[in-house]
């Protein structure tokens, strides 16, 4: 897997600082899990926070340490979690509920990703080979991580692991890979106007 498209430095820094909306953060995490280079950058941005912790003016605690004696200590890590149950599934999605796949057209299906408290709406989209995804415009962010397969639009080809960070200035029509199809996870904020037959089908389900 060769990652070509990554989050901007600002997006990664906001993620590292724990300041992204949880819906947007989940989609960024799906990319980071697949990309060692972004993991390396994330660790550096976390080290920035370690440096800030060392430099910050301490503020005296009102109370001393709680009695840690009764608090059990964790044994060393047991290692990585088991294999993903489904192709393209990410470990970082384990904490979240996933709705059922629902067909929303010919060879296209979506499922909700339940992210409590998120401002962004999060869903997975699975499209068969060669399909043109709905042409649309929107007012907020639309961030996408490709989980399997690929799509292509004006800004290039996006394959498994790639991150597509679009804002309202973008207006694109992704075309799904003619052989592999495409499964992706999307977080959207703001309002969207979907166009075309697929757009009309998607509109009520995405519930804007």
């Amino acid at each position: 897997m060769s990652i070509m498209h990554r989050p901007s430095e600002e997006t990664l820094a906001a993620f590292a600082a724990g300041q992204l909306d949880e819906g947007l953060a989940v989609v960024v995490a799906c990319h980071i899990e697949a990309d060692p280079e972004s993991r390396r950058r994330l660790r550096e941005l976390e080290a920035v926070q370690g440096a800030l912790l060392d430099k910050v003016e301490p503020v005296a605690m009102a109370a001393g340490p709680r009695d840690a004696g009764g608090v059990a200590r964790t044994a060393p890590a047991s290692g990585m979690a088991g294999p993903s149950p489904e192709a393209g599934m990410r470990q970082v999605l384990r904490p979240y509920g996933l709705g059922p796949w629902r067909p929303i057209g010919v060879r296209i299906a979506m499922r909700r990703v339940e992210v409590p408290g998120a401002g962004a709406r999060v869903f997975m989209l699975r499209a068969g080979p060669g399909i043109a995804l709905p042409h649309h415009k929107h007012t907020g962010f639309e961030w996408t991580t490709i989980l399997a397969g690929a799509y292509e639009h004006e800004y290039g080809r996006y394959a498994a692991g790639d991150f597509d960070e679009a804002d309202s200035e973008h207006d694109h029509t992704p075309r799904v890979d003619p052989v592999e199809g495409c499964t992706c996870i999307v977080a959207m904020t703001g309002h969207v106007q979907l166009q075309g037959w697929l757009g009309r089908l998607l509109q009520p389900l995405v519930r804007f």
Partner: protein
Amino acid sequence: MVPALALTVDGKREAGARAQGGRFIVLFDPNRLIAAIARSGDRAAFAALFDHFAPRVKGLLMRGGAPAELAEEVAQETLLAVWRKAALFDPAKASASTWIATIARNLRIDIARRETRSRLSQVYEILDDEAPEQPDATLSGAERDARVRAAMTQLSPDQYRVVELAFLEGFSHQDVADRLAIPLGTVKSRLRLALSHLRGRLEDLR
């Protein structure tokens, strides 16, 4: 002059500070204190870590605009997590300060988003478990931290301030604009520039 106190592995205070260049330096080695907790549940080591880090975590949260009460709670919970997770600390992955800062970040999210049942801290933990990239080329946590600190000293005071504000007080451009009394567009470009400058220095120092 009273010699500075140094901490030994088991956290006992002793007047063993070494003189260096005519100045006393305090031997505070968080890695060894964390290791002492992992090995034997050393409560003196815990007290020493608490004294050092809890007021800093509290200070960091308050700089970020958290009320004192919340900052105190996050600091308490962070240090308890350090006690609980001491055996999971791996100095090859991150320095103690960075490890503790990420624990504090996760707990701040857990506590601030408690009513919405946020799971974001689990996401960070899952990412943290991922195998490190290119094992042979990976720097140790201490080396990475040293590099990041060196890169930060190469930022202009303006850039440093923007980065610090963004990390501590949020990436909401409007908030930073209000805070620094500069136009929104300027904040966006300054932050982008400061972060790319930091990234450039980090890549140079690899």
